[in-house]
């Protein structure tokens, strides 16, 4: 399955990444080579094989659904925010 230049541009959009001409060219080649390599998985007969989607016990353990476990203070969390206003994360306009 070859990856086309327009595929790469489309995926970049999904990733919220921008690339210039030269980078796109290079990335298309690199991704094509990696995808060609992983093609070897096609040789495997995986009918009736369960995917390894869960951990060793087959499930995740969940904590009690109660608030208050190790909750960080708003002040501590906001310290890391690039832009903040009145205790909220501030972002550029959405529309």
């Amino acid at each position: 399955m070859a990856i086309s230049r327009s595929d790469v541009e489309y995926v970049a959009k999904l990733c919220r990444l921008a690339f210039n001409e030269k980078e796109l060219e290079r990335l298309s080649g690199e991704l094509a080579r990696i995808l060609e390599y992983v093609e070897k998985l096609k040789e495997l007969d995986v009918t009736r094989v369960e995917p390894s989607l869960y951990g060793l016990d087959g499930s995740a353990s969940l904590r009690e659904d109660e608030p208050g476990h190790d909750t960080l203070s708003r002040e501590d969390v906001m310290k890391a925010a690039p832009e903040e206003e009145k205790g909220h994360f501030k972002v550029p306009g959405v529309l």
Partner: protein
Amino acid sequence: MGVCDVSLHELSSMLAERKLSPREILEAYLSRIRTCDASLRSYITLNEAECEKLVQERAQGLGESAGSGAGRLANIPIAVKDNICTKGLRTTCASGILRNYVPPYDAAAVGRLRDRGCLLIGKTNMDEFGMGSSTENSFFGPTRNPWDLSRVPGGSSGGSAVAVAAGMAAAALGSDTGGSVRQPAALCGVVGYKPTYGVISRRGLVAFASSLDQIGVIAKNVRDAAIVAEVVSGWDAGDSSSARREPVRVEFGSDWSRRSQDTGQGSVSGRGRNGARAKLPVFKVGVPWGFFTAGLDPDVLDVTRGVMSKLEKEGWAFEEIDLPHADYSIAAYYLVADAEASSNLARYDGVRYGEREGDATDLLDMYVQTRTAGLGTEVKRRIMLGTYALSAGYYDAYYLRAQKARTLIRLDYEEAFQKVDFVLTPTSPTPAFRLGEKLEDPLAMYLSDVFTVGVNLARLPAISIPSGFSRGGLPIGLQLIGQAFEDEKLLGAAHLFEEIVDLGVRTPEAVRNLLPSEGRQS
């Protein structure tokens, strides 16, 4: 031998017997770092001020005590990979996007180290977000191999491996998604232990590929690694994938293997106190020769054969095993890891933490500008591959098929463990390669993980043990792989392996050259 070159357990005894003060230890390590790290560059951030403060408080009897009840890690300088969160101490993941990020909480493993009175001496360099095998993909520049400054230390936990190898930390935490603890340990001549998935909490380990990521320990020897592992392992309610098990605990020199599953492999006891050799446990080890493909360095092969013959003389038995799907592990690994990474790294969007880049007036542009400027080349490549593998129309062909291959790889190991106690492989197909050698060829770099990624896919415990040197004097490590949750048996066997191979303690040449002349070194 200087303070920085003795093992963690000896250092701990010297502290307990008051042959050394915490201040002397800290000074010695900081002095070693000042001497060597300008050349090696293993640390991104040093935690000097906090360590000084702790040592001072303890000397004055303020705050927590200097060790009584705090255990063997009290006042021991430990380095932490820079993708493991440390409250109040910058945690960058070696990424531009997190270059100023200061976490508001400690990772579970870090909290446990602090509780035991450790000195968190600094945060170590790595490949950005753990993506790489050479520590060259770092926003802060590459780390160098202490055995040869023109070579890479391996990765992604290269900074942690170098800090330990060069005596700049008594032990270190790393993380291992596809070999990132074991491979740099092998390339730097130290021990790298990756526990069974779930044994050490991932809370506070910045996620790369959540179903593969596991915190591991890098140390000078197996015993030291086990001492650190005992403190940081065990169930944590804050990580849903944490295993509900007791901490890993190994009693060396006594009856450690009675604690693990009975292997029927002979009787067990330690070395007698009088030094006479009591009967030691022996193991049956599977070697997947068919998987040692072209590309295996002849020196690595020689060391493997040499170690096997030493172990055979002590009664260990080797048999060839088949891992028919091992050849698919790199392909499955990169699809699973990158798919999970593409999802995990979506959080770096310039809103809640990390840098915001550019001057966008609209939200979507802000995301694009932030991520484009803040993330490195390899990280972007992986996000692209992972997103593609998960995108509509390709999910079944790539991601789902890779997860099925993963099951087959795990079943291969399960079958092997019907017959053998452990599986042995080289940790890396070659000794340390040169800086830049594989940087332009992502696939060649990926292939250097051929012996390690299957272990993560199967969620097994494994340890890289220094086993010899190449003709050029570079360290070579072998990997012992155990059954899931038999970490204690693995560590116990690795300890015996280490004793039998008996490489002794060696200071890397580049470090010796950097140190002041004999006698004055710390």
